[in-house]
């Protein structure tokens, strides 16, 4: 169980640009559930992920991962519990390192890093096997610099890296938003496969209502820093994008004119 309890986050407090990013957010995610998160710009989606990852501190509230209260733990200290794929393909990998060095970095997530060689024969073979699952032909390019890969390839590798070690929750931060539609589909397919195979507890932020309904078990909508809509099960199964849009408009009390949100 992952629990966000009455989370408040304020940026630039006491200044003219003070922003209340989260205003009493509550969310429980049972183990093994795949939750998709939607909301307009500034609704607090990214802030919520950053609070879970430990990049953003909270004013009040608690973050529980299983039995552990991790509210005050740094990003690196909770990395053994939280795995993450960023929106920007450049952000999730190191372009100056080789593909296998990146995999080796991910392999040590949640473990002490010692002085053993990061890439040895055994690991090389294991990495070949794992990366072949992506069907991108990268198994023969393990020694290539990460920077040589396309955005889609890098996101696929990021996803593999995030799921290589056990974690309590997988955070996907609009991880297909920077990709062209075909590549985005491919990466979403991989996501469903990895999440499904291991029954990962997952939180995926997306701009696309289509994507939010087509994937996962439950959809949550954020507005002005809190959860305003939470659908799952039967109700969600019969839902169309228009229904969701309608609810979204009702919540906001205004017409939605964000094309990206409607068509995506």
């Amino acid at each position, binding site marked *: 169980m992952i629990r966000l309890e009455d989370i408040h986050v304020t940026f630039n407090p006491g200044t003219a640009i003070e922003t209340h990013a989260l205003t009493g957010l509550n969310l429980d995610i049972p183990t093994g559930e795949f939750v998709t998160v939607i909301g307009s710009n500034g609704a607090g989606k990214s802030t919520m992920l950053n609070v879970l*990852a430990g*990049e953003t501190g909270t004013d009040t509230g608690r973050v529980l991962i299983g039995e552990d209260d991790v509210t005050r733990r*740094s*990003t*690196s*200290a909770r*990395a*053994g519990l*939280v795995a*993450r794929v*960023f929106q920007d393909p450049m*952000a*999730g*990998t*190191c*372009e*100056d*390192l080789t593909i296998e*060095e990146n995999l*080796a*970095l*991910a392999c*040590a*997530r*949640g*473990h002490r*890093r*010692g*002085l*053993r*060689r*990061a*890439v040895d024969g055994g690991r090389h073979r294991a990495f070949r096997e794992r990366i072949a699952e992506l069907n991108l032909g990268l198994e023969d390019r393990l020694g290539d610099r990460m920077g040589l890969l396309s955005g889609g390839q890098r996101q696929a590798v990021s996803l593999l890296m995030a799921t290589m070690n056990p974690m309590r929750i997988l955070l996907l931060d609009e991880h297909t938003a920077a990709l062209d539609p075909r590549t985005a589909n491919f990466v979403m397919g991989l996501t469903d496969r990895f999440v499904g195979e291991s029954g990962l507890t997952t939180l995926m932020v997306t701009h696309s209502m289509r994507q939010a309904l087509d994937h996962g078990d439950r959809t949550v909508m954020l507005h002005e820093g809190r959860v305003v809509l939470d659908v799952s099960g039967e109700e969600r199964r019969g839902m169309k994008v228009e229904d969701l849009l309608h609810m979204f408009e009702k919540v906001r009390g205004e017409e939605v004119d964000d094309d990206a949100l409607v068509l995506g």
Partner: protein
Amino acid sequence: MSQIAILGAIETGLLFGLVAIGVFLSFRILNFPDLTVDGSLPLGAAVAATLILAGVNPWLSTVAAFFAGAGAGLVTAWLNVRLRILHLLASILVMISLHTVNLRIMGRPNVALLGEPTVFSAFEGLDIPYYWLNPAVLLVVVLVTGYLITRFLGSEMGLGMRATGANPRMASAQGIHTGRMTLLGIALSNALVALAGALFAQIQGAADITMGIGTIVIGLAAVIVGEALVPPKTIVRAVIGAVIGSIIYRFAVAFALNAEFIGLQAQDLKLITAVLVVVAMVLPGLRTKRAMQRRARATPANKGGQG
């Protein structure tokens, strides 16, 4: 150039090869422009010279100098990581402070080591002339250091350090304590530079408060020259490149000073080195710009388009 001049250039080149490896760690691996080295080189010299004069074993004195340098690096990194002072400023503050510290350690602006035992005099029984012996000892030191650094950067911890410099956000997400990695890396970098200072003092028979001026520029010049000669596709190549760059730089200096028709004198070196670093840093950018302009001209159809 005479044989002694050539060996002298190699000797100084190898010595500053240690500095170049240190600068490579801070500037290239950690992306941390660290000027502390201008103070940690004389710090290493001061510690080693003072201890040797006090009768301490020269090997032990050299090791002490290594750790003194690590301490200086730790202070710089701590100012940056914990007190959040801009890295460049943090390193300048420590560099300036070290001037006082070095004077305090030596008790005066310079200390002579004439007739004292050094790590080099330990090999005098081998009956090899000093101009062969010194570069040979330094070669061993540089080879061992280069191997250890390369091996470290290929380890899990070393990979964590490289990720810290290349992509700190990703590094934290992977559970790497980026602050600790910065502390460790900058300490290691300055330890190597102080080691170079300790050996330098023992070779020239004196430690001097001014011997550190421009260390960072010389180290950076070596790294940049090395990158031009040996494209740093791997860590091994980058480390070898830094040492080779340092030696080539010394040869260029020796040549410029020996060629009378150029009319250069020793005091011109610092300015020339600075200009060399500027040119080396600007050139690659200019080259890409030229190539892009050429491409734009070659495809007039794209005029007004992107790029």
